[in-house]
């Protein structure tokens, strides 16, 4: 569906993304991870057309998106930004209705009945109908982000594109947003998400793209890509990726940051920790 071919982009003459190739298939949840400044947000801006491409192409269903107008592009991609507060206390229902903008025949004309129904269904799908009459600015960060996701759904896009949608949310709200995203993805929505937290990628991604220095260094399933070695390499810190057994018997993979000690080399330390964690909740027998 979405194909990125040798995309080079950046700010003015400064190239930040140096030729990346990847694709997102229908219904797939793809996460891009990498350290600050690795070019993951810049890559998103190139895909969304916020930045001009120096070379390469972004194709959606085979069509080059650089030839499309903002309006046409907005029917393919819906963008969910990092949380920020707009200056005016719009009603939640009105914010979601703005997602219909690319489908209006003219912005002077009134929205149609169908636009209202689509916006309503989007709120229903994210279970935020009870917030519809509230003011957007007085919601919690997690709820605000759900409203923006509903607005994105109202665009009826082929792909949701998100730039760290959970940044600046507290622990509970991060989980709230990720869980709803996961449900959406299970219902067939394709998602491309940039995240700063590898645990989020482990939580909901089908496929992970690891970026470093403006290039893709690795691509694959979460368990193949998010390993102690890779995490240590891209984040330059001591990390242990461990499988933890939960009380109900399920095993979950997670990243654990470690204190950097001189005595124990990183990898050795990580392996020890991994073993300990697995044994921690081990079988009673």
């Amino acid at each position, binding site marked *: 569906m979405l194909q990125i071919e040798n995309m080079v982009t950046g700010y003015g003459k400064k190239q930040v993304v140096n030729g990346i190739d990847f694709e997102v298939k229908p219904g797939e949840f793809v996460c891009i991870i990498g350290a600050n400044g690795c070019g993951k947000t810049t890559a998103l801006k190139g895909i969304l057309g916020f930045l001009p491409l120096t070379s390469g192409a972004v194709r959606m269903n085979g069509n080059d998106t650089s030839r499309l107008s903002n309006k046409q592009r907005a029917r393919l*991609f819906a963008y969910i930004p990092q949380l920020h507060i707009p200056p005016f206390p719009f009603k939640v229902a009105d914010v979601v209705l703005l997602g219909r903008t690319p489908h209006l025949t003219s912005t002077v004309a009134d929205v149609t009945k169908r636009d209202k129904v689509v916006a*309503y269904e989007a709120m229903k799908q994210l279970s935020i109908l009870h917030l519809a009459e509230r003011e957007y600015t007085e919601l919690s960060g997690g709820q605000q982000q759900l409203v923006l996701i509903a607005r994105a759904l109202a665009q009826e896009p082929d792909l949701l594109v998100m730039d760290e949608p959970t940044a600046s949310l507290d622990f509970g709200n991060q989980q709230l947003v990720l869980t709803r995203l996961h449900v959406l993805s299970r219902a067939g929505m394709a998602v491309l998400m940039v995240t700063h937290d590898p645990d989020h990628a482990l939580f909901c991604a089908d496929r992970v793209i690891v970026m470093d220095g403006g290039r893709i260094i690795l691509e694959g399933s979460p368990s193949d890509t998010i390993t102690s070695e890779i995490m240590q390499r891209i984040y330059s810190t001591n990390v242990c990726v461990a499988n933890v057994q939960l009380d109900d018997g399920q095993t979950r993979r997670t990243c654990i940051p470690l204190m950097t000690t001189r005595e124990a080399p990183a990898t050795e330390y990580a392996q020890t920790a991994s073993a300990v964690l697995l044994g921690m909740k081990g079988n009673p027998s």
Partner: protein
Amino acid sequence: MRNRYNEKHTERNIVNSCADPHASLASENAALDLYSTQYLARRILICSLVLVFIALLSFMLGRYFAWPPEVWQAVKEHITDFVAHLQNPDAISVISDLKLDAALFNIRLPRIIVVLLVGMALSVAGASYQGMFKNPLVSPDLLGASAGASFGACLAMLLNLEIIWIQLFAFAGGMAAVFFVMLINKAVRADAILGLILGGILVGTLFSSGTSIIKLVADADDKLPAITFWLMGSFASITVKDMLMVLPAMVLGFILLLAQRWNLNVLSFGEEEARSLGINTNATRTIVIFAATLLTACSVAVAGIIGWIGLVVPHLTRAIVGPNYKVLLPTTMLVGAGFLLIVDNVSRLLFSVEIPIGLLTSILGVPFFVFIYRKNMKGW
């Protein structure tokens, strides 16, 4: 490609959307209910009625006071007279009270109409700028339109030009100032909003200095007082000619801004979000700036500097109908017109000498602003 639909979900989707017509009809009704704007329509109707009432009141009040029956009589006579003269230019006038007729139709009517227009213009321009610059504390002179128009008018007065030229110079000055701002914005190549605000500050300062220089060299006996008085803003000498001059440009400005009211909602969420929602942000910004400058320059040209309306009225209107530009923009025009008309009545009736309305809007605007801000603290 995997099939990601699990059974439970598919079931739910069917129930929601297609299989059960009652369910979908119910959600359709709920959606229409949610987006019903009836309560807003009522509030807008009340605003309109209040405006009509104030306008009629302004028609009666003045040094030559007239009760409603007298006004009604005069209006009837004026129309009859007008029609009679259309048919036969030599017809004998049927107007019984010539003084009242002159007061109503040569002085009060054009003045009231221009006050309404200026009130609408400044408020709608201010509201639009507040959305476009994502900042509730912005007024329509942000990009130097007022400073440029003042400079133009003062220059014309210094050159001893006629009133029509003063107005044209003011208009040209306002448009030129904002044009320079656009050039600076292009030159600095910063973020579009930042570049515009920076340009506005620079150009505003430049033109204000120009105005000061003109004041410095102006004849202190007659020109300087005229310039100073003009800068304080006044509707005292409005004629039918003034009204006809600004009317077309202002109507154009109103139409352009009202056509952008959906886009203004989207723009207030920021540049990138607006683009991702399919808005051509550059085109929208250019239209809004052009229309707002047109309105501001026309206002200054015909009535001088009238501050605070463009800042206060949009906030007052948000307190009445909420922040959605679809409703806010037309309503702010009604409220702005009514607000300025009240202030204008005070300015001409309070004392035997008229108080310059620009002073009065500032004096009334500041406490009023504090009042609304306190009431609406959580946001606009």
